[in-house]
């Protein structure tokens, strides 16, 4: 809005820079994450096969991330591991967010005992330490991919549920929605024209910001031995294995996988935060 005072060309250049920069950050993050995901998905298992002739090789040109106690190339293994984590994380947060959307909307629309029940579930889930609940569910479901994925799904919906519920309640009681009803609009029309467009940006951003949580928790549960099986390349597995050799100076086993996890998590945050800036009507034209 302050741009109105600039001359036309000034204004145009200013908008171009800011918006392009933010958009480019988002595109870079998406390309990196999708790239790693796909690369890992179609990777030949031979590239991180066991090779006892090359145990504990420190990072060099052939093995940028070194090799581990079985002579597996850590670079390929990390990519594969991150790809596995990303796919599980994305799946888990997607389903988790569906639960959140359903519970949040139901709670705001029906109110009464439905609202009380949803809030009770949210409090129950948030009242317990996250990791304990994750371990409990994962262990109960027999660990492995199913255990971890379901555990993450069933523990990550509460915060997003609260956001969705608050957004629906806020827009539902707003004057423009009330006025729309008086102008003869049906509940469905109001939901489609006013409520959904209001909730969806927060929902999508909430969903994207859920990914890093899901991935971190998947890695932590696996690290603690309640998650993905040992033979599956996963950041949590790699990190827990690396602990055995850290004291003997095999630093590359922990540093590179740890960094890759960190970068992936930060990039999801970058996407979420920048989309927030782009979509917010207050800053959308800046």
């Amino acid at each position: 809005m302050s741009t109105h005072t600039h001359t036309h060309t000034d204004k145009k250049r200013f908008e171009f820079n800011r918006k392009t920069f933010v958009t480019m950050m988002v595109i870079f993050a998406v390309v990196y994450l999708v790239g790693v995901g796909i690369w890992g998905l179609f990777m030949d298992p031979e590239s991180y096969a066991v090779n006892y002739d090359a145990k504990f090789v420190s990072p060099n040109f052939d093995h940028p991330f070194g090799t581990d106690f079985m002579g597996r190339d850590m670079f390929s293994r990390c990519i594969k591991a991150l790809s596995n984590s990303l796919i599980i994380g994305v799946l888990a947060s997607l389903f988790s967010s569906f639960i959140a959307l359903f519970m949040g909307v139901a709670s705001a629309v029906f109110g009464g005992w439905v609202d009380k029940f949803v809030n009770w579930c949210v409090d129950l889930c948030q009242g317990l330490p996250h990791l304990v609940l994750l371990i409990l569910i994962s262990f109960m479901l027999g660990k492995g991919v199913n255990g971890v994925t379901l555990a993450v799904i069933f523990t990550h919906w509460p915060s997003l549920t609260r956001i969705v519920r608050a957004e629906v309640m806020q827009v539902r009681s707003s004057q423009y929605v009330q006025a729309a009803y008086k102008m003869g609009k049906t509940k469905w029309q109001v939901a489609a024209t006013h409520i959904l467009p209001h909730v969806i940006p927060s929902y999508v951003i909430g969903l994207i910001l859920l990914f890093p949580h899901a991935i971190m928790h998947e890695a932590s549960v696996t690290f603690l031995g309640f998650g993905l099986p040992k033979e599956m390349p996963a950041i949590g597995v790699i990190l827990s294995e690396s602990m055995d050799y850290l004291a003997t100076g095999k630093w590359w086993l922990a540093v590179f996988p740890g960094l890759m996890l960190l970068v992936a998590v930060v990039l999801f945050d970058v996407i979420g935060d920048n989309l927030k800036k782009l979509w917010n009507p207050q800053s959308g034209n800046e």
Partner: protein
Amino acid sequence: MQLKAENISFRYTDDGPFVLKDITLEVNSGERVGIVAPSGYGKSTLAKILSGYRLPEEGKVLLDGKPLPMTGYCPVQMVYQHPEQAVNPRHRMDKILNEAWQPDDELLRKMGIEKSWLTRWPSELSGGELQRFCIARVLGPETKFLICDEITTMLDVITQAQIWHLLMEISEERNLGMMIITHNMSLAKRVCTRIVDLTKLNNVHSHTHTHIHDHEHGDEDHVH
């Protein structure tokens, strides 16, 4: 046509104090009835009840002897004090304007709505400009009564004058019934055909609680 409030009582909670008690009042087509009272006498609440936004605890709101329709286009429409809250910030102005009907160019010209505003977002218009949209969008042919809740309180005097001139013209032209809620006695005297003092009509004895609700609903008399 006649819009009638029959022995209306209202309170915000089941055991709270009454905000309105035994109010009976009617507005006929072509009439412009001013409702005047200081803050806290339930003016905005009365407006919401008469336009069907809230149901009275006792009593009835009747339009030609029949209760207000709960679905479909309501023949009694309300214009709010704060136009920026009454429009969806995510919609462009043309979408807001055409939500219920398609006002013709003649009306837009009369309302002082410029064509170039139609492609803007609500945050890019001033309060007075937005209020013109809020009025225009409820002036559809099905509207028989218009409830104006402090609609010009926060606008500058020139815009106030323009809007009231126009509303007076339209109400006469279309035989529209209007209820005008205001603090401003001189405005009421100028615009209304009849003035009702809500302090005399409302049989509530204690006002210590009611003003809280009035605050909540943005019924403030500061002119910015």
